[in-house]
């Protein structure tokens, strides 16, 4: 599979027309392929902690996380895509539903490319520290960085895709992206919480999904508290 478009996506060389309604737009299956491949790579590096420090983790954990990371992004997209379409249509962005899907897939591929570039750092820290809260926080920060860059890309593309007569009112596009980002961030964070474990916890048994308890914000606060209190 050829992923040279990812390089152009990172450099900002892919024109809006090519992404949403050009003569030869990027194919959806190529975007999904990139998401699956990059997500699997990120998954391997995240799962290494369980293998290295866990008492009950094996190859199944790595395999499960390789599947779960791309699934996390794709399921978040399924939940939030209709709302982005409605909000962007309301701002007269000119994007059709299929174009909205393609744009979101491109933003997701971009986020995963950034995460994949940080995956060696995750792997390095996995072998360098036993602290589970530290690795949890590090992963959360990396996901936030990747997500923010992807959302900036989304904002730029949505603004560029707006018809000329709608551009003076760019503020509406901005407001829409901000509102939608809030929804996306909440759903994405909670989806990740539901699909735990990704990193793995040393003394806990290997499981595909943990029982749903509390929510992601309570979990992150707890990790930060452990990190600060030691």
């Amino acid at each position, binding site marked *: 599979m050829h992923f040279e478009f990812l390089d152009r996506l990172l450099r900002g060389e892919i024109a809006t027309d090519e992404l949403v309604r050009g003569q030869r737009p990027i194919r959806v299956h190529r975007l999904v392929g990139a998401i699956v491949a990059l997500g699997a790579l990120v998954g391997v590096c995240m799962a290494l902690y369980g293998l290295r420090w866990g008492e009950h983790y094996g190859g199944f954990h790595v395999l499960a996380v390789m599947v779960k990371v791309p699934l996390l992004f794709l399921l978040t997209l399924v*939940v939030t895509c209709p709302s982005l379409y409605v909000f962007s249509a309301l701002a007269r962005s000119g994007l059709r539903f299929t174009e909205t899907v393609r744009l979101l897939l491109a933003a997701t591929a971009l986020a995963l490319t950034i995460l994949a570039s940080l995956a060696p750092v995750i792997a390095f820290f996995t072998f360098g520290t036993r602290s589970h809260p530290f690795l949890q926080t590090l992963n959360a920060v990396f996901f936030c960085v990747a997500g923010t860059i992807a959302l900036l890309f989304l904002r730029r593309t949505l603004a560029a895709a707006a018809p000329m007569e709608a551009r003076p009112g760019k503020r*509406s596009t901005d407001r829409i992206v901000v509102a939608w980002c809030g929804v996306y961030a909440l759903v994405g964070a909670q989806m990740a919480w539901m699909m735990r474990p990704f990193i793995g916890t040393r003394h806990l048994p290997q499981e595909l999904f943990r029982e749903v308890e509390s929510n992601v914000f309570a979990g992150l606060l707890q990790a930060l508290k452990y990190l600060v209190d030691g």
Partner: protein
Amino acid sequence: MTATVIRSGVLASALTVRQILTGDGPFAPGAQRVPWRRLFVLVVVVTAFHGAAIGSLGVRPLAILYGAIKLPILFAGATLLCLPNLYVILACLGLRKDFDASVQGILCAQGTAALALAAMAPVVLFAYACGASYPAALLVNASVFALAAWAAQVALSRHLGLLIERDPRHRRVVLAWFVLHGFVATKLSWILRPFVGDPALPIAFLRARQWAEDPFTNLFWAAAALLAGLFR
């Protein structure tokens, strides 16, 4: 043959949805012939869908059915109760000729709000699937309704902006509409409770004694109880 009919029906619905959201075609501000029936059917279907999603906390089929019935009643009821007053205000200000255009704007805004709600139904269902508690479910639904109200406001200002440009007195009409509609919708939603439905309580289409209750005092205590529930 059937597939072709279904396909053309889906395409027509998708086009209608897009035209309502962007304010184009027959739903453009100042359009001469608005397809009222299509708009009404769409609002009823879409709000019923979202009502079913709201009522699905605890996955109780009867609560889902009640939600699907009550949300369209809330949408249509609040608007119908306020329309006569809109006519009177426009007539008093000498703007009676703009009644059709005002109603068009209001109904397109309702359609936009309904579509925004339906688009966020997956978010509500996801929150429920995450095991959201009753107070958390109330908070999620309140946030979703706030976003839908904002979407409606965008559509309304698109339509009524033209009228205000033509005659600034329309500003007063819009303000009166917001106050009255907000007042009526709050009371009606209080009467039609429960929408979400606490899974710990038995299912009821309406709660007892709510006709006599004052929603504005109760809403204060409901908000306080919601916050207390979240931080418990």
